């Protein structure tokens, strides 16, 4: 039981997909302009990650190892299509905001990475916990970046103006701001590591 909990926790801190493994960088940088977008992307990716982890760990005996990568990609793409259709129907404004990055969840390296490194070697329940932990780690880090950029770049939190007396720094809402915030976060994390 203890080791199963470790599978869950490792994604959140010790093996955080963005800060430690440096995976899934494209969606991280592109959709973190606001907390809302970041959370939407994080939850969608978490859903796909959990579902594909479960399905791949179930079918791992039947997938021949030579065609495993294409098989994983098709499984992942199926769940991404589900997310795409559901989001377009029920959250059209979010779908418009995330735009091209919704279909691009397919090539989010976190998902294929976990399928290859974890789900193809472990049981269904462990894979579920791994997917959940990694998903939460991804969503949390993404939301942090989204929050920082929304406050600094637009002077808002969740679309509501912050009652602070300062002029928003536009560059944080633009692409360079994303790279800068993530670079500084990685540097802070690296400073905290043991020598």
């Amino acid at each position, binding site marked *: 039981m203890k080791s199963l909990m470790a599978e869950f926790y490792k994604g959140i801190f010790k093996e955080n997909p963005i800060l430690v493994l440096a995976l899934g960088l494209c969606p991280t940088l592109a959709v973190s302009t606001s907390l809302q977008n970041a959370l939407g992307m994080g939850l969608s990716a978490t859903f796909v990650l959990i579902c594909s982890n479960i399905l791949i760990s179930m079918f791992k005996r039947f997938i021949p190892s030579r065609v495993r990568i294409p098989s994983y990609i098709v499984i992942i793409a199926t769940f991404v299509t589900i997310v795409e*259709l559901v989001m377009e129907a029920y959250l059209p404004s979010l779908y418009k905001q995330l735009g091209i990055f919704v279909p691009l969840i397919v090539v989010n390296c976190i998902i294929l990475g976990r399928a290859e490194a974890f789900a193809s070697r472990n049981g269904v329940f462990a894979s579920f916990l791994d997917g959940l932990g990694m998903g939460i780690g991804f969503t949390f880090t993404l939301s942090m970046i989204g929050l920082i950029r929304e406050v600094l770049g637009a002077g808002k939190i969740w679309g509501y103006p912050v009652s602070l007396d300062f002029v928003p720094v536009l560059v944080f809402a633009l692409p360079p701001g994303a790279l800068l915030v993530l670079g500084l976060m990685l540097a802070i994390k690296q400073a905290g590591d043991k020598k």
Partner: protein
Amino acid sequence: MTAKIFSLFVLNVFTANFILFRFLGMCPFIGVSRRKHPAFFMSLAVIFVMVFSSIITWALYNYILLPNGLEYMRTVSFILVIASAVQMIDMVMLKTMPALHRTLGIYLPLITTNCAVLGVTVLNIDMFVKDGKAISGGFLFSVLQGLFAGLGFMVAMMIMSGIRERLDVIDLPRPFRGIPIAFIVAALLSLSFMGFNGL
């Protein structure tokens, strides 16, 4: 026509550079940009895959998916096309150009999960198919967009790998060594590429 092609070139290579503005293909950009030589061959392979998959996915979408009302199969079918294109290039290269194949080796299969490739094919459909009908010259524009997006990828890769080769010999503060400084450099590059907006 010529004006439109030129604006497509400026858009994809400079003002909306795939890496520095759209954030597509970030993983190889950080992962393979330590040295100039592999960065160059990686970009060449990416250009090739982008053009090739732009052609195939355009035909697939307009002649098979659209007439049959299968638009929702876009993501699944496009990624399969890209995966098989990469696999095919891998096999052809192994037979005909074994030396180049050895140089590229591990980078080739990684192109499948390079979001810039899927990104350009999806973008082609978003930009050049309006209300379920291809705009005139749409095919030419998508092929060129594939080419220009790849060129933009190459420009960013070459600048970045040139800078990172120099960074290796600089005495940086410990927290910034490795990946963090790469992001800061990319931020400055992205900032300077925004200067092209006036074009």
